[in-house]
């Protein structure tokens, strides 16, 4: 497992640097405008894009066929991608949280909101990961890219529609309550996704 994660980190180091520079730019933008939403969204995207990039390298070089000649079970190979994704997600969350706290000094933001925002963003990241990884294992990176666009677009569209629809204050409050259930839902989906990916990968031939 450790060897696989190290391999992925080495593989994506170049893309990682480029994406890091990009997020750095958005961070600056966020600090100047005192608005973290774009930075949050971009860094979550990055944390998902990197594991997917590593999988596209794997696919191109037929790495999986090779990895399976090593003392690595199929389960370990699948789990390593989730661990990588979650690791990157944690890094991103810590950064977002830190920036939020710094900004909170200058603005009137309460800390509960900081934590809620961070959790929301990292939860969304895990959710995307849970949807995309089984799809990639099933259809391959190229075909799953389309799904990726849909996965990113649909929530945005729903958000836009909701705000257009002029929901009442009451329904917003209900949504607020739903947020408390969100972590459990995210974790459940993650577990389901891991199981599904392992099952797909077990029957795969290279």
């Amino acid at each position, binding site marked *: 497992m450790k060897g696989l994660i*190290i391999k992925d980190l*080495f*593989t994506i180091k170049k893309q990682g640097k480029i994406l890091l520079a990009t997020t750095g730019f958005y961070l600056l933008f966020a600090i100047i405008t005192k608005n973290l939403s774009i930075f949050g969204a971009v860094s979550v995207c990055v944390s998902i894009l990197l594991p997917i990039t590593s999988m596209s390298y794997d696919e191109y070089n037929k790495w999986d066929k090779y990895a399976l000649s090593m*003392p690595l079970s199929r389960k370990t190979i699948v789990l390593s991608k989730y661990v990588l994704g979650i690791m990157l997600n944690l890094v991103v969350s810590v950064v977002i949280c830190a920036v939020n706290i710094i900004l909170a000094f200058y603005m009137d933001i309460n800390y509960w909101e900081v934590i809620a925002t961070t959790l929301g963003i990292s939860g969304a990241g895990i959710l995307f990961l849970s949807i995309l990884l089984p799809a990639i294992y099933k259809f391959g990176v190229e075909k799953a890219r389309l799904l990726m666009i849909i996965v990113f677009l649909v929530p945005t569209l729903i958000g836009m529609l909701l705000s257009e629809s002029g929901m009442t204050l009451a329904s917003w409050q209900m949504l607020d309550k739903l947020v408390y259930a969100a972590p459990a839902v995210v974790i459940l989906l993650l577990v389901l996704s891991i199981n599904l990916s392992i099952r797909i990968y077990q029957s795969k031939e290279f």
Partner: protein
Amino acid sequence: MENVLEIKGLTKRYDGFTLDNVNLALPKGNIMGFIGENGAGKSTTIKLILNVIHRDSGEVKVFGRDNIEYENEIKENIGVVYDESNFPDTLNAGNINTIMKNIYKNWDQDAFDHYLKKFSLPRKKDIKSFSRGMKMKLAIATALSHQAKLLILDEPTSGLDPIIRDEILDIFLDFIQDEEHSIFLSTHITSDIEKIADYIAFIHQGKIVFVESKDVLLDTYGVLKCRTSEFDALDKTFVKGYRKNKFGVEALVEKHKLKEQYTIDHASIEDIMLFTVRGRSIERIDN
């Protein structure tokens, strides 16, 4: 003699191709050349040994143990090289050392360094800038650096020039000096096999045509060149395949069994392969 690799009744069905009831055994301390044309089933067999694809029936034993039940233990002790480098090309040799150290229990950093030097492979350059030969050498260095007892090689020399091929064959001969070591090597370059193999397994259209010691094969068969009339008078029991052309007949024969005095040329592995498959065979070479 103890078999390091044993395959019995191995079958895998695809749409349009079946690997059909493959049987073979590689005794410890030997090199087996696995030959056959492209698409004959060599890679399929190797993938089944490695459990990269799923078999329909049959069994595979490596080091005397089932290849699926004892998968991880077996894989600690085998080194695999495919026909191309499977490392993401943004890695370098130093990275590979770090990665493999964390994958193989017996990863031997000194051995890896030794091979990098021996093959003059740079440590810090991206694999992207490597030639095909360098990439293959890196894959071989990796396969040799975790104290593997069996090398499974799927056309490791295809697409390489004769000089590099010869270098690589020397490395394999070096490896086999230790009598605990064995090699299963698939290729369609028969001259490579002739140089190093102890045993030859020949696969054609998904079926094993023969598994035989190389010396026995080379000693048994010869290429007879004679006139058509002479050929027609011949006892065909000893003819394994023949080709007629306007000058006469060329035939693969069991040379010691021919009573008549003819000039019989040495039959190369390639001759044996070609006559068996393409010659209008009178009788298959069976074991």
